[in-house]
């Protein structure tokens, strides 16, 4: 993974010093609340319901074991012994003291981490595919491009006070695992007919109050021009985005008001002045960054031998076999596997990890996966390069650590925001709903029979739990001070991205497991062969679900 150069390190250390000064001016009363607000937000610091919350950046989801150990230390010494992985591959600490945040940032800088632009109306952390570099369907490794974009967006002087937050995601493979269609800018790496590398550029996707699927504004942008083209898009948005109403301030509203065609024309006009200028990327710079993402030192293995040994072990161990089936994935190098560590055991808030678990995972990464870990936007972790012959030992250690729940991609691997338990924006709690659903559906054979199914829960319309793009989406709503839950069906964040449709009137919290159960019954009774939930939904539509859920005789 990328290692900071001397100047990368310096810029992060100078940021810590800057924020230390700003925090002390705030604490002494020199800076007013409203002046400190954007400064702390651009360092990832929210004031939450119970305490400040610090969001630490994990650029494109990539971490190393040393960083995990530092996160464990921060969780133990500055927080209550745990942290939370978010739906944008970042990490949140829920209980830091404001006075100590500069010290936390200084500790993080020691391991090349920071909280730069993890919040606020600026360009946020760039997200990507958790299988970058190891996916079988990869066209181009997105990580070097994400790092180039990270540097471009870090302290970009023109774009620190945008109308609203701005999120960019990059995918380098055929299957979109980075949800690029629901980002302010989605970038798809691809090759044209001449074999040249470039980007397909989507703008104006997003969730929140007004969910929109992004529109293509350029079919092919040669790689050399990516920074200038992004400058042009964000400049047009900075100048013409709505600043009067924060609910109409995202780029998607501007793109929709102008139409994607007109927006594209404005961007092209702006870009015509920038094109071929100094920010045109050089092969030398791309090569410099790419050298940090070379292949790890894989052994040459015979896949058949490794696979046979694995089959022998799993034949008389059903639990191991189930874990292999759900939590591991084919690697593009013979004899290796991609392994998911589930952060969704029943009874733990989805995405939460303790300090000692962080250390245990760091040890596993060192022992089995070249010391690297990836965070996924589904709030799980990935060890991307595990030798197949190590899988059994890894499984046993992961099991004792509490992150071998064999539920990846299933109903109980649900995405869930922190909700009303922590977040001051939330209308309703989300964690108790997640837990109630996990408890109801504790029969793993039933869950496996349902197959791939995404269930996403957000505690408010800001949609941090991505409820619009869950096959089943749950949204917490407030009705006269009481918490209710609205259900949506048919969402997807993949290549066939779609927004869910609202089922009907909302439900009380205690009804939710029954409601989900009725929805699943409709699917089971209507599916053809091994048809997935989303495909059955698309075939039969919303009505059969509606009729069953709202039928009077229940």
């Amino acid at each position, binding site marked *: 993974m990328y290692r900071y150069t001397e100047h990368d390190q310096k*810029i992060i250390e100078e940021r810590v010093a800057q924020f230390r000064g700003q925090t002390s001016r705030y604490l002494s009363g020199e800076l007013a609340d409203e002046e400190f607000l954007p400064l702390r937000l651009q360092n990832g610091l929210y004031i939450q319901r119970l305490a400040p919350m610090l969001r630490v950046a994990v650029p494109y989801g990539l971490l190393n074991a040393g960083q995990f150990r530092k996160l464990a230390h921060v969780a133990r010494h500055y927080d209550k012994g745990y942290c939370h992985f978010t739906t944008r591959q970042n990490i949140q600490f829920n209980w830091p003291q404001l006075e100590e945040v500069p010290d936390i940032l200084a500790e993080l800088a020691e391991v090349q981490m920071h909280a730069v632009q993890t919040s606020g109306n600026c360009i946020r952390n760039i997200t990507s595919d958790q299988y970058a570099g190891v996916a079988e369907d990869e066209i181009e490794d997105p990580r070097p491009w994400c790092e180039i974009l990270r540097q471009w967006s870090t302290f970009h*002087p*023109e774009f*620190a*006070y945008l109308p609203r937050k701005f999120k960019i995601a990059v995918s380098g493979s055929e299957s979109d695992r980075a949800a690029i269609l629901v980002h302010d800018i989605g970038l798809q790496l691809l090759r044209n007919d001449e074999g040249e590398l470039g980007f397909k550029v989507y703008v104006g996707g997003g969730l929140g109050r007004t969910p929109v699927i992004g529109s293509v504004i350029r079919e092919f942008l040669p790689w050399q021009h990516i*920074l200038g083209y992004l400058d042009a898009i964000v400049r047009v948005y900075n100048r013409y985005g709505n600043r009067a109403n924060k609910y109409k301030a995202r780029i998607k509203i501007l793109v929709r008001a102008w139409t994607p065609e007109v927006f594209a024309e404005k961007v092209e006009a702006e870009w015509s002045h920038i094109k071929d200028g100094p920010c045109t990327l*050089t092969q030398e*710079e791309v090569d410099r960054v790419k050298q940090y993402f070379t292949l790890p030192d894989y052994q040459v293995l015979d896949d058949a031998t490794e696979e046979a040994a694995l089959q022998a072990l799993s034949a008389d161990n059903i639990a191991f076999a189930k874990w292999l089936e759900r939590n591991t994935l084919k690697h593009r190098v013979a004899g290796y596997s991609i392994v998911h560590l589930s952060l969704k055991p029943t009874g733990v808030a989805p995405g939460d990890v303790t300090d000692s678990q962080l250390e245990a995972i760091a040890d596993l990464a060192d022992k089995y996966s070249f010391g690297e870990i990836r965070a996924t936007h589904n709030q799980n972790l990935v060890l991307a390069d595990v030798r197949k012959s190590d899988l059994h030992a890894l499984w046993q250690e992961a099991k004792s650590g509490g992150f071998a729940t064999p539920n990846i991609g299933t109903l109980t691997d649900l995405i869930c925001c922190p909700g009303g338990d922590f977040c001051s924006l939330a209308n309703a709690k989300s964690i108790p709903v997640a837990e109630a659903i996990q408890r109801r559906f504790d029969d793993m054979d039933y869950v496996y029979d349902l197959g791939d199914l995404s269930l996403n829960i957000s505690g408010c319309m800001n949609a941090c739990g991505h409820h619009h793009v869950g096959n089943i989406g749950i949204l917490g709503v407030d009705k006269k001070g009481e918490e209710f839950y609205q259900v949506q069906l048919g969402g997807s964040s993949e290549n066939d991205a779609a927004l869910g449709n609202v089922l009907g009137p909302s439900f009380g919290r205690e009804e939710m497991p029954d409601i989900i159960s009725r929805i699943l019954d409709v699917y089971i009774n209507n599916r053809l062969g091994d048809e997935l939930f989303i495909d059955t939904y698309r075939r039969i539509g919303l009505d059969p679900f509606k009729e069953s859920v709202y039928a009077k005789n229940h």
Partner: protein
Amino acid sequence: MPKIINKDKIVDDKWVVLPKNYSGNLPENQLSLAPMKYWLENKESIRIAVLGLWIDSDEDVEALGEDANQFPLIAVNFPSFTDGRGFSTARLLRERFGYNGQLRAIGNPNRDQLFYLKRCGFDSFVLPEDTDLEAALESLKDFSVTYQNAADQPNPHFRRDQ
């Protein structure tokens, strides 16, 4: 006389900002910043040398374009410090229209924006009245390293001599 930051010095501010809806004749013997709109509507008749312009955050600097260089001082208004349109206006003035005169941030920019403002091409700054200007000068130097090309630096980091 109010104090402002000009380059890296604290100096007296001798300029008066005329209101956005200003009409009629310009004040005599007074350094005046006229609204850009006033100049666009009266440019044939204006013959006063002591004139600068100010551009509001919702105005397109393209209307002024390369005529900018007729003015010794142009100010860009930040109606609130969170309104970041002026950052783009400044870069366009400097980098697209080649403006070489003094470029001033007015309205409500604050100390913690100085580094970004400077990078976008501003060289003078009217900060809120209660700002400790001596201390604020430090914020012009918040960072010694930058990644992007901007008005203060023609090349991104990867094209500079390392």
